[in-house]
């Protein structure tokens, strides 16, 4: 059928198809991620989770969506109309843009930029603007506090996140996500970067910073319900609030997808079809994020900053040196032991330096 169409229509058609795929994939993953999260956290807490709407609660996201649409959209009178209105839109745009660069399967990357990774990092750094607009626009003390906290957190976690990606680029020699996945193709599709010492450390740091980047569990300061009610989206309701919610979940999906691409070999896998590998790895990482949410209490603002600047950042710098050494050293066991030794030594050293934050031993007497 496509044979007789003029070529410029072909180009537009392919662009439209990929846009439609992403525009459909994004919100649907978001909806079913909310359901997955509520089910998994429920199961962790010995309860069932939503199971009333649809067979196993499968229609629950639809019900939430309809509820969000019909909820009244209240705009506080002192609010700054432009900033208040634009903030939710400007927070969803980067979340959707970033889908373009993720390699879902062999040859299934929407736009195979040769600066894919840099595109991902650049776009995800613009969300701070939207959060500023949300917290400034709603003229509410709680949202101002939330806004300040989230921007400080995002800025200070972006640095170790970007630096933890550098070793991967250094070894593969290209910024394109597809090349990175191809570079992990050895040993029948199991030669993932995570099995190298620097890869494991970089993966842990990248994943922690990713969790902090999308304001999820141990780092969910900005919308800390127990302290400042709901942070920068206190004054939002109805569809605008749903957009914030959607952006958070899409970010968590893309961060997990990118972590899988960079360190777990993206769609590389021995037998199963490539896209199945990709989605399995991504959903395992999402499960870990939800697991964090179901278990861990929250950091305080200053502890969060110290963790980023005094612990993760030096670790990533050392990791880049080790990756450099790894690139030039001959492929022998000595290389592995050397790098593993250096990394564990530096991890222990940094932990000693941050001794102030380690838990103290406590002794309790018993009077009568």
């Amino acid at each position, binding site marked *: 059928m496509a044979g007789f169409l003029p070529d410029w229509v072909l180009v537009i058609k392919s662009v439209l198809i990929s846009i439609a795929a992403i525009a459909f994939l994004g919100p649907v993953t978001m909806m079913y991620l909310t359901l997955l999260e509520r089910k998994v*956290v429920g199961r*962790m*807490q*010995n*309860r069932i989770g939503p199971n009333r709407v649809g067979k196993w609660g499968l229609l629950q996201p639809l019900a939430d969506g309809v509820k969000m649409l019909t909820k009244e959209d209240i705009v506080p009178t002192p609010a700054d109309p432009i900033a208040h209105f634009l903030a939710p839109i400007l927070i969803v745009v980067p979340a959707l843009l970033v889908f373009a660069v993720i390699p879902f399967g062999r040859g299934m990357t929407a736009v195979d930029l040769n600066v894919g990774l840099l595109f991902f990092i650049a776009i995800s750094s613009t969300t701070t603007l939207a959060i500023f607009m949300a917290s400034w626009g709603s003229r509410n*003390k*709680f949202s*101002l*506090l939330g806004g300040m906290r989230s921007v400080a957190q995002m800025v200070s976690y972006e640095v170790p996140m970007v630096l933890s990606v550098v070793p991967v680029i250094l070894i593969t020699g290209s910024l394109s996500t597809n090349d990175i996945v191809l570079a992990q193709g050895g040993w029948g599709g199991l030669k993932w970067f995570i099995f190298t010492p620097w890869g494991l450390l970089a993966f842990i740091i990248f994943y922690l910073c990713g969790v902090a980047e999308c304001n999820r*569990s*141990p780092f*969910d300061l900005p919308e*800390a*319900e*127990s*302290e*400042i*009610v709901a942070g920068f989206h206190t004054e939002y309701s109805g569809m605008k609030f749903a957009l914030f919610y959607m952006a958070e979940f899409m970010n968590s999906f893309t961060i997990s997808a990118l972590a899988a691409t960079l360190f777990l070999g993206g769609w590389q896998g021995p037998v199963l079809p490539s896209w199945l590998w990709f989605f399995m790895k991504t959903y395992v990482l999402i499960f870990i994020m939800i697991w964090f*949410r*179901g*278990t*861990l*209490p*929250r*950091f*305080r*603002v*200053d*502890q969060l900053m110290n963790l980023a600047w005094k612990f993760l950042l030096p670790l990533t710098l050392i990791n880049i040196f080790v990756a450099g050494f790894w690139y030039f050293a001959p492929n022998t066991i000595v290389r592995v032991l050397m790098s593993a030794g250096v990394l564990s030594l530096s991890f222990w050293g940094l932990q000693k330096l941050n001794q102030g*934050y*380690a*838990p*103290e031993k*406590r*002794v*309790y*007497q*018993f*009077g*009568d």
Partner: protein
Amino acid sequence: MMEKMFEVQDPVNHDTQTLQVNIGPQHPSTHGVFRMNVVLDGETVVSLKPVMGYLHRNHEQIAENISYTASMPYTDRLDYFNSMSNNFAWALAVEKLANLDVPERAQYIRVIMAELTRLVNHVSVIGFLLNDLGAFFTPVLYAFREREKILDIFEEVSGARMMCNFLRFGGIKRDLPAGTLERIKEVIQNFPKFLDEFETLLTKNEILCMRCQNVGVLPAELAVNASITGPMLRASGVNYDVRKADKYSIYDRFDFKIPLGQTGDVYDRYYCRVLEMRESLKILQQALRDIPVTGEIISKKMAPFVKAPRNFKPPVGEAYGRVEAPKGELGFYVVSDGTPQPWRYHVRAPSLINLTILEDLCIGHKVADAIVILGSIDIVLGEVDH
């Protein structure tokens, strides 16, 4: 020399604008309708004024217009987490006033019920403290799973899960139904297993330690001077427990220890509550072992008033009965003028008095810490505002 080199011409004072924020009365983590008028400089708390009275229903005025037994169900609603120990305190006060004796079996049942409420209270408080720290409801739901088992026993014994209204002056309302002691024994058997699992989840958790250690430190002499009682006092290292000080009811027969903390910060208050739960389990095991199988459950002197509580006229005089409630020392001061209604009825609410030093603990800490410190003080607004 470095300072000299970088001398800034006119050092502009950058005192940022302080922010006055109202946390409460409608706030997810103030444990009820309680307002804190907080002035913030950036994130740190500069001043914190508690505002109360949103749940005030003049419980004392009500009690002065109804008979002694009729105000027993109202004491359930003081600290609605521990209705049995509230009843215990009110029963003790009136027994001291009318010097009634309490038969053996009733004494044992009272102690068993009081210690079960201590388990329920401490487990729920730790759950709520973790909620304030940000753990998304998981510890609370583990705690509530154990609380359900104990509330089933309360419902079986007294008829209601939280509003038990089970104790009467001189004993208890009705004897235990058949099989209840076995069920209590079973709950006590697998409570330690749950506690160990709870501790592995929480005690060594680095984030919890970072957030709770050296936060809201309460020095021992300030605690005694500010009449702080309960786990907060013992977490600061002061060895004072009303069960050991007054030896009321039959607590002198049980051997149990009083866990004492060192620094008196939020972490010590959390861990002292865990250790107190283990001590309560010891008391419960001993009580279940020694409880007399049969025996009457209310003193002879109260026989005529069982069917007609309004005729109960204690002799003229006053009495102050106090008990070691899970939140602290709960006392009832009652003055009788010979009529069926008390002349003066006063509740010494531990939650209210433990709030005296809330501002001292929170100043200098961050907003997040102020919420956690309030959570560690463990207040219930029904008792604060009585």
